[in-house]
């Protein structure tokens, strides 16, 4: 929520329509710095005019410090061209694909960054329309270790997420499976024009869960875990403790099928409680076309809520976590996220505190999959203008209400493209999160966060030498004295994309805060008097253990 000053200004200025609006002429808060930083990439869909569904679905993006130099590099999947890696040198990006071994030539969909061998550097899992690939990072050069890893994912995979579901200290891998695509199927829209087929035209495939055995080896435990019992056109997936029992669960956003809420039973098996816990359908009891998904505590009640992006003619959906095992309720309308998303098709979505005021705002990348008449303001030419749409940005106005942004997010929401991937990372290391965007048949874009900050701020980077190095899955509670915020260390929100693990928080007037970490194995540790306005490394064992 913006500060009192803005509200005062609004009371005194005629025509001020929102407490969120900056003064006219103010600099945008999300500045497109793509050209300025040398990020030169186009997602080539490989479209031939026949309208094959895979060409309009892909385009994951990722922040990864692949060379271990402390700044965030960029990885971008591609379809009809090799994937690309861009090295960050003091805020300028240089194509480093050739030397990295990461120019995967598969039909690229998603990317999941994670240190699967726990050796201190970031590895990459790539989902493809076709065989997925696991790349191990050996000092900045990547080696395809798929064959030796035991991972076999030959179908059409979408998002993937690294998560230590059995809390043994090694990152396991959940891969959302989409559909068994048949190339010769053709579809038309209601007006009889050729268009991309929807998922219901094809048999859905099941998701896969790979258990990390150590030494770079994995076992497909989908059957034993119960995951393969459902086939439901999965696109987005997050790993988060959604019922408050301390164990990480999986939530899968399915395209036109009920979403799954796979509750972790703690014995290596999962049970889908999506329907019973109110997270499978919308308020009308209907399945929606789930694309991207975010698990985050939007209302600062210390419980993770869920946000899922959807097709046009559906709202995006906000599931409020009721806590105490009561599940979720579709509160999309109550929080102001319904009407503005109805005409748009959402894919990537990220939650971050743009102005560091203590609550999570929401950025959404849009772009149709069903053709429409071309928009007059499209940034892409026909036929892609049939699918181009503007993005959305919402300010969190206090946890129970979101407000669509206007001027502040102008460069981001005015880009009328076919956006898919979206990821967060502080590429310029200035303490706030920037936005990386992937567009079909368009450029990847980097938006620098230049929002004025509302009070003090803090960046937390966790390290767990006893478990997975980056502490993926650790739950952090920051107590400022006036408020508490809950964040989970993860790379795996959004759509087919991977963000950085650092936690960026606005802490208001507090000069120091108290941080409680629930490490992935469930143990608690408190870090007292953590100083604000900087990046703090929280290493396990350096705080006070909480019994």
């Amino acid at each position: 929520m913006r500060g009192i000053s803005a509200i005062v200004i609004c009371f005194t200025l005629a025509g001020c329509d929102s407490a969120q609006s900056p003064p006219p002429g103010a600099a945008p808060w999300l500045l497109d710095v793509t050209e300025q930083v040398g990020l030169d990439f186009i997602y080539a869909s490989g479209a031939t005019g026949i309208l094959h569904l895979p060409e309009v679905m892909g385009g994951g993006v990722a922040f990864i410090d692949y060379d271990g130099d402390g700044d965030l590099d960029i990885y971008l999947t591609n379809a009809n061209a090799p994937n690309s890696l861009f090295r960050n040198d003091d805020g300028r990006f240089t194509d480093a694909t050739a030397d990295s071994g990461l120019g995967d030539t598969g039909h690229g969909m998603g990317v999941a960054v994670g240190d699967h061998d726990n050796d201190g550097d970031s590895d990459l899992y790539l989902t493809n329309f076709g065989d997925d690939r696991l790349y191990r990072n050996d000092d900045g050069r990547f080696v395809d270790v798929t064959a030796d890893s035991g991972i076999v994912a030959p179908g059409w995979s979408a998002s993937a997420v690294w998560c230590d579901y059995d809390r043994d200290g090694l990152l396991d891998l959940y891969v959302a499976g989409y559909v068994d695509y048949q190339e010769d199927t053709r579809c038309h829209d209601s007006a009889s024009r050729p268009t991309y087929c929807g998922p219901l035209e094809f048999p859905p495939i099941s998701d896969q869960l790979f258990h990390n055995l150590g030494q770079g080896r994995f076992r497909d435990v989908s059957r034993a875990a119960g995951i393969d019992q459902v086939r439901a056109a999965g696109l987005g997936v997050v790993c988060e403790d959604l019922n408050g029992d301390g164990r990480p669960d999986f939530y899968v956003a399915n395209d036109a099928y009920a979403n799954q809420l796979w509750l972790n039973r703690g014995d290596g098996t999962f049970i889908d409680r999506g329907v019973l816990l109110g997270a499978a359908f919308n308020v009308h009891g209907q399945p929606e076309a789930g694309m991207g998904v975010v698990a985050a505590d939007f209302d600062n009640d210390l419980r993770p809520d869920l946000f899922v992006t959807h097709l046009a003619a559906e709202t995006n959906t906000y599931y409020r976590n009721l806590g105490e095992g009561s599940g979720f309720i579709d509160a999309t309308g109550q929080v102001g996220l319904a009407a503005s998303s109805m005409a748009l098709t959402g894919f990537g979505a990220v939650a971050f505190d743009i102005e560091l005021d203590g609550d999570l705002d929401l950025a959404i990348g849009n772009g149709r999959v069903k053709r429409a008449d071309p928009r007059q303001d499209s940034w892409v030419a026909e036929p892609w203008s049939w699918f181009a749409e503007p993005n959305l940005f919402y300010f969190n106005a206090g946890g129970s209400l979101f407000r669509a942004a206007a001027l502040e997010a102008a460069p981001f929401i005015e880009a009328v493209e076919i956006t898919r991937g979206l990821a967060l990372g502080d590429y310029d290391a200035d303490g706030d999160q920037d936005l990386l965007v992937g567009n079909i048949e368009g450029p990847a874009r980097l938006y620098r966060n230049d929002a004025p900050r509302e009070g003090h701020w803090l960046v937390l980077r966790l390290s767990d030498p006893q478990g997975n190095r980056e502490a993926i899955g650790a739950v952090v509670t920051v107590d400022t004295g006036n408020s508490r915020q809950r964040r989970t260390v993860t790379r795996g929100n959004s759509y087919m994309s991977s963000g950085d693990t650092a936690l960026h928080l606005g802490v208001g007037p507090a000069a120091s805060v108290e941080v409680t970490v629930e490490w992935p194995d469930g143990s608690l540790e408190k870090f007292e008097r953590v100083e604000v306005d900087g990046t703090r490394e929280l290493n396990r064992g350096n705080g006070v253990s909480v019994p």
Partner: protein
Amino acid sequence: MSRKPRKRKKRPATRRSSAPASRLTTTAQTLRKRGGVAAITGGIVLLAGLLLVAALVFSGSQPPTETTESFAPLIPAPDTGSMEGPVRRRLEQARTTVERQPDSGPAWGGYGALCDAHSLYECAEVCYTRATELDKSDFRWFYLLGFVSELRGAPADRVAAHYERAALLEPRLPTTFYRLGEVLTRAGRLDEASVAYNRAIAIDTQLTVAYRGLGQVALAQGDPDAAIVHLNRAMALGADRNPATLASLAQAQMRVGDGTAAEATAARAATATAELPIPDPVRLRINEMNLSSAESASRAARLIQAGRYEAALEQMRVVEESRPDEPVTHYRIGVCLANLGQLDEALPRLRRAAELVPDNEIVRREFERVRDLVE
């Protein structure tokens, strides 16, 4: 990155035509389609009257409306270039009608309805808006504008205002209030949604979907006990195999702590497939106006299933224009002709279908059956 140049779209040529702006179906036809909906039996007489009104207005038989001074928008011209012939021609005819009668509400509304039927919502919204300006007495333009403007992202207040206006003009149609309830539910205005659903029920006490709506609102309001009452009422009125109703009921049962019942209901929801149709004569009419071969083929299949071969044949003739030599075209036309007793005409159709898909057992059997009858 710089913006790529945008191609300028050519406005498609239009043909002059005096054809009515909307496709007609009779009240009797519509009522027959609705005959299978057991749960709304009590509302049939009421709705039949409304359908009559609807049919009259769509037929263009309403008196011309007076010219207004308000700003006239450009007549929308969707990109019809890659559309099938019947769709393209019909849209162009409707557009021509508007060009010739720019002050006619029914002309604008009819064009809007045709755009709406083909999911061309931008066009539909412009046309309906103009129709409401020119023809303030026809509830359906407001009703349809409410429906389409929500899809176009209009705020709930504006959408609700359209439905409220429609309800003022035609207070006997329960689905106006039902649609209003849906909009308000999606907007999170749950108390108002509940009122709207109850207004729908006040008109039609058997309106199953409204009870389901009330149940879902109660669930969202944190009152699972009330939700169970409403949802059980919906179940009793025919929603007992509807997955959305069952899923909501399972969730409500879970909330009140009845895990066993919740599990059982959720299991039923997982296998249930029955749709719960909304008895909405206005939207039904719009759906019937879709002329794409895919929609016509799908309607034909339903009509064949129902044994209505003449109507099915009519739909397949539309399909044939765009997909003349597809096995499904020949097969369904052959089946219709055979069942209408026109065996000599049916036989070459079925023979051709069997040639195109020689491995299809169903097609082969039907061909052999008719061949034996002819010989």
